[in-house]
C-alpha cells in the first residue's frame, strides 16, 4: 500500500469520527457534546434527551454509516462486473426493482394485517434487485453501449416507481405516510432491532467482497484473461452479482432507494487514492460511503430543520454531476 493510501485512510477515519460527533450533537433538539457522551457511557436515564440520543440518533448514525458503506461497495462491485465506472445500483434500476417488491410486500402486509420482519424485508428487496439485475445483464449482453444500458436502467427505475406509486395510491392505510417517506429514501425511523439485522448482513457482504478482491483484480483485465489465469469465471460472476445485490437490497429494504452514492463514492476514492487495487478500493469505498452518507444525512436533517429532506435529494445533488462528468469523459459508449 502506498504512503498516499495510508494517509488517506487516516483522513477517512478522522472524517467519520468528526461526522459522528456532529451528527450526535446537532438536530431539532440541541444536545451538548459532553451531555451526549455521558448519556452514551452511562446508558441513559430514561429521559427525553436520552431517548433522542440512544433510540433515535445513534441507530440513525449507524444506519447512515453501514448502509452508506454498503451502497458504495455495491456500486464498486457492479462497476467491476460491467467494467465500467458509471454502473451503480441506482442508475441501473436495481434499487428501484428492490423498492417495488418491498413496497408490494408492505402494502400487502398492511392490507392483510401482517407484521413484517426485517429479514423478510431483506429477502423481498433481494428478490426485487436480483430481478432487475438479471434484466440489466440480459440487456448488456445485447447492447455493448453503457449509455444505452443506463438509459434502460433509468427506464426500469421509472417503471418500478410508477408501479410503486400505483400500489401506494390504492393502499388503504395510514401506514402510507411511512411508505412514502421510505420510498424516497431516508435513514429516519431506523430501530435498534433493524440495526441488529442489517449490520451482520452488511458485514457478511463486506467480508465476501474482500475475499473476492483477488478475483476482481484479475477480472479487471477482461474475462478471457481471467480465465487464462485459471479462474472459474462463471462462478465468480455469480458471486460478484450476488454480493452486490445483497448489499444494495439491504440498503433499499431499510432506507429506500438512495441515488448516486454507488457511483460517486468509488469515483472519488479512485481519483483521490490513485489506485485500482480492489482490496484498497473495497475498504476505502465502504468507509467513504459511510462518511458520505453521514454527511448527506446531516444536511438532510439540518438544512431546513425541522423539515427533513429525503436523503436522495442530497446525494443526487452531489452524485449526479459526477455521473454526468464521467459519462462525458468516456471516449466510447
Amino acid at each position: 500500500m502506498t504512503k498516499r493510501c495510508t494517509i488517506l485512510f487516516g483522513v477517512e477515519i478522522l472524517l467519520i469520527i468528526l461526522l459522528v460527533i456532529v451528527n450526535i450533537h446537532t438536530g431539532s433538539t440541541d444536545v451538548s457534546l459532553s451531555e451526549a457522551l455521558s448519556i452514551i457511557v452511562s446508558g441513559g436515564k430514561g429521559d427525553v434527551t436520552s431517548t433522542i440520543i440512544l433510540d433515535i440518533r445513534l441507530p440513525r448514525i449507524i444506519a447512515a454509516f453501514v448502509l452508506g458503506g454498503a451502497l458504495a461497495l455495491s456500486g464498486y462491485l457492479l462497476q467491476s462486473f460491467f467494467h465500467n465506472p458509471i454502473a451503480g445500483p441506482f442508475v441501473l434500476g436495481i434499487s428501484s426493482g428492490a423498492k417495488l417488491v418491498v413496497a408490494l410486500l408492505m402494502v400487502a402486509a398492511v392490507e392483510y394485517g401482517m407484521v413484517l420482519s426485517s429479514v423478510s424485508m431483506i429477502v423481498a428487496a433481494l428478490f426485487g434487485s436480483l430481478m432487475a439485475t438479471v434484466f440489466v445483464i440480459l440487456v448488456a449482453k445485447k447492447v455493448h453501449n453503457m449509455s444505452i444500458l443506463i438509459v434502460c436502467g433509468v427506464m426500469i427505475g421509472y417503471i418500478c416507481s410508477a408501479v410503486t406509486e400505483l400500489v401506494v395510491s390504492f393502499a388503504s392505510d395510514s401506514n402510507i405516510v411511512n411508505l412514502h417517506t421510505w420510498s424516497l429514501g431516508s435513514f429516519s425511523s431506523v430501530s435498534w432491532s433493524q440495526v441488529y439485522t442489517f449490520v451482520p448482513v452488511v458485514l457478511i457482504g463486506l467480508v465476501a467482497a474482500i475475499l473476492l478482491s483477488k478475483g476482481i483484480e484479475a477480472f479487471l483485465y477482461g474475462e478471457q484473461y481471467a480465465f487464462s489465469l485459471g479462474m472459474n469465471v462463471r462462478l465468480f460472476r455469480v458471486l460478484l452479482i450476488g454480493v452486490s445485490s445483497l448489499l444494495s437490497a439491504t440498503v433499499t429494504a431499510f432506507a429506500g432507494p438512495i441515488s448516486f452514492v454507488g457511483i460517486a463514492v468509488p469515483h472519488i476514492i479512485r481519483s483521490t487514492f490513485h489506485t485500482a487495487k480492489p482490496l484498497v478500493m473495497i475498504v476505502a469505498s465502504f468507509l467513504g460511503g459511510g462518511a458520505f452518507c453521514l454527511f448527506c444525512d446531516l444536511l438532510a436533517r439540518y438544512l431546513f430543520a425541522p423539515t427533513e429532506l429525503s436523503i436522495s435529494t442530497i446525494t443526487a445533488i452531489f452524485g449526479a454531476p459526477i455521473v454526468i462528468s464521467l459519462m462525458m469523459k468516456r471516449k466510447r459508449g
Partner: protein
Amino acid sequence: MLELHTSELSVGYNKKPLISDICLAVKQGGIVALVGPNGAGKSTILKTVSGMLEPVDGAIYIDGQELRNISKSQRAKWMSVMMTGRRDTEYTTCYEVVSVGRYPFTGLMGTLSDADHKAIEEAMALVGATELRDLDFDKISDGQKQRVLLARALVQEPKILILDEPTSFLDIGYKIEFIENLKKLVKEKQIGVLLSMHELELVRNVADQVICINDHGEVDCMGPVSEVFQTAYIERLFHIAPGGFERIYGRENAALKREENTEVNRDYRDEDSDSTSKPVNSQRRAHFLMVQGTMSSAGKSLVAAGLCRIFKQDGYRVVPFKSQNMALNSYITEDGLEMGRAQVMQAEAAGVKPSVYMNPILLKPTDDCGSQVIVNGKVVGNMRAREYFQYKTKLIPDILHAVEKLEEEADIIVIEGAGSPAEINLKQNDIVNMGMAKLVDAPVLLVGDIDRGGVFAQLLGTLELLEPEERDRVKGLIINKFRGDKTILDPGIEMLEERGDIPVTGVLPYMNLHLEDEDSLTERFERKAKGVIQISVIRLPHISNFTDFDVFEQIPEVALQYIQRPKELEDTDLLILPGTKNTISDMKWLKESGMETAILKYAAKGNPVIGICGGYQMMGQKIADPNGVEGGGEIAGLGLLPLETILEERKHRRQVQGKIQDATGQFAEWKDLEYTGYEIHMGSTRLVEVPGTGSVGSTVETPGTGSIEITHDSDSSAIVEFTEGQTGYASGNLYGTYIHGFFDRSEIVETLIQKIADAKGISLAMNQVMDYQELKEQEYDLLANTMREFMDMKKIYEMMGLHHDRNEV
C-alpha cells in the same frame, strides 16, 4: 519435455465448425505461427486451444492429458495467453499489471510473497521493462505496453505461450524489439510458442513452423517456414494478383523464396520493354496505357473509349479499366454485379462484354458526404468520405486482383483516371490516378480541356504539382475539345512542349457524340428544350439511372427535359418518373413540391405516364420500409396503380430479357414487343386487391385541389401485367416497370413516338430512329477515326512498348 498438440480438432462457435481437422503441435523451445487472411479464424483456433472456447470436435492435449481434464490452476501454470484487445486501466503501475500474472501462485487474498516479487522483477528484466516499473500502464506507448503484457504472460512461468497478433499495432521498431525479446526468452526459458501474425516478413524470421489457414476454413498448408513461404503460394493464399506482393513490398524485401521459373519469366518480361518481340508465355503481362485529365469532364472517358476502339480496330484484345468510380448510375453485368457505366461504354467500344473487374470499386453517393462502397460488384457498406479515405488502401489487393483477371484476356488495358491527379490534398493513399499508374507501371496521357479555357495552365500546372517520379510517367499531352483553326494553336503547343518537356500527342476536335457520358450530369439537367414532341422526366432529388432516357435524344422531333416545377409539366406529351436512390424521401419531395398534384392532374387527363423502377414504386398506393432500408417509415404513393411496395434489405440485381405481356391505352401496340434491360432495386412490389371489378378508376384526394376524378376508357382501365415476371403493370395510359433500359430496343421507342405523333397529328420522318446499339457502334467508329486523324498513334504505341506496324491486320 512438455508438448501441446491437437488431434482432429474442429473449432467454431455454437457447435458450428469454422475450421476442421486441425492437427498442430507446439513443443517447448519451438515457435509455431498461424497465418492466413483476415477472418480466416486464427483467433478462434487460439481461443479454443487456450480453453476459452469448447472445441466443436476433436481434442487438445497438454503433456498427454486432455485439456478439459486438466485443473484450472494447472492449466494456468502450463499455459499463458496474450490476446489482442486490452482493457483500459486507471491508476495502475506496470509492476501491478505484471503482478496479476502471479494469480495461479498466490493464496486466497492474492498477497504477493517474496518469491512472487522476485519472479515479477525477473520477468520485467527479461523483456526490458524494468525502467517502466512505476509508470502508469495507461500512459506508456503501445510498444511498451506490449512489453509489459509479455512480462505478465511470462510471470506465469508458462511452458506454452499463446499470442494473438502480438505485433499488429506496433511500429516497425517495436515489432523488431518484440520479436527479438520473444526469440530470446523462448531460448532461455525453453517456452513453446503458438502465435498468429500478419507480418509475413516477421513470421519468416521468428517461426520454425507455419500453419496456413485459408478463407474457406481449411488448414491449407503446414510445415517449415522455408518450404511453405514461396511467393506464388502466399499470393494464392491471400488472393494477391501475381507480382502484386513484390510490387508492394519490393523485390528483395518481400521475395520470401521465389520459384526458379518465375524468376526467369520475370527477367524475360523486363527485357521485353526494350525489344520488339512479343513474349510467348502465359505469365506475360498486358500493356498498359492510362488516361488522366486535368479536371473532371476533360473528356477522359471518351478518349479512353476512342483508344479502346482504335486498338480493337488494330487487332488487339483490349479492355478498359478504372479502379474507382463515383457515380449514381450503375450498370448490372450478366452476373448481376454492379459497375460504373463509363467502363461499360468503353467496353462496348473495345468490343468486349462489360465485366465488374473493369471497375472494381464503385462509390454511389447516398448523401453529401457518404457513399455506398461496392467492391468487385458487391456492396461492402456505407462509409463517410473520411472513413473511406482511410479504408481505401486496403482495397489495393482487390484492384490488383481485378487487373490480373483482365490480363488473362487482354493485350492492352486502357486505364482511366478520375478527376485530376494533382489534387494535392488527396494525393496520399491515391489509388485512382498516379497511385494506380504506379501499381501497374503504366505510361500516362494527360488530357486538358481547351473548351473551358486555360488549357496551357491546366496542363503545365498539373505537371508542376506532380512529384518528379509521377511527372516522369506522363508520356504525352492531349488538348481536347478544340474548335477552329489549329495553326493559331501551334505556337502555344511549341512552348508547351518546351516548358513541359513532354510531347503533345494530339489536339482533338470538339465532337458531338451520342454516347453515354456520366460526367455531363449538370448540363443534361439544365437543358430545357422545346420540340414537336415533348418528353418530361421528373428531376427527383435522388434521381438515378437517367441514362435510360438517352435514347430519346437521337430522335430529332423529340425534346427531352428534366423538370422540377409543376408548371414545367405544361405541353408534356409523355411524363416519365425515373429511378431513384431513395424512393420514400423522393416521394415526400413530390408531395411537398406540389408535383404530386400536378402529376395526378396530368394523368387524370388521360396523358401517358411511365414509371421506371423507383418511379414505378411511386405510382403505387403505398411504399413501406419496415426494415429501415431507407430510414424506415411508410408513405402513400401516387395511387395511380393498385400496387404496394415493401422495401427489403436484399437487393434484386439481374439482367432481364422478355416480351411485353400486355399493354393498355395509347401504347397497346407494345404488346408482344421484346425488351432487354436489367433490374436493380431493393424491395418488392405486389398487386393489391381492388374492391369491385379490379378497376383502378378511383378518386384520389390531393391537397389544395380537392378531389380529382381519374377516369379511363372502360376497356383499358383494367390492370394488366406489363413486363414479364410481375416486374411491371399497366392500366390505361399508366405504365410502370422495374426494367431499366426498357427503351433501348428501337421498336419500343418507335411505337411510342409514333403513337404520340399520331395523337398530335404530326407526321414523323420515321426511318431515322435507328437501333440504339447500331447507332453507338457508328459513333465509336467515328470517335476512333477522328482520334486517329488528330493523334500521333505511333508515339502512343511506343509509350506502351509496342511497335505497331501491322496495319494489315
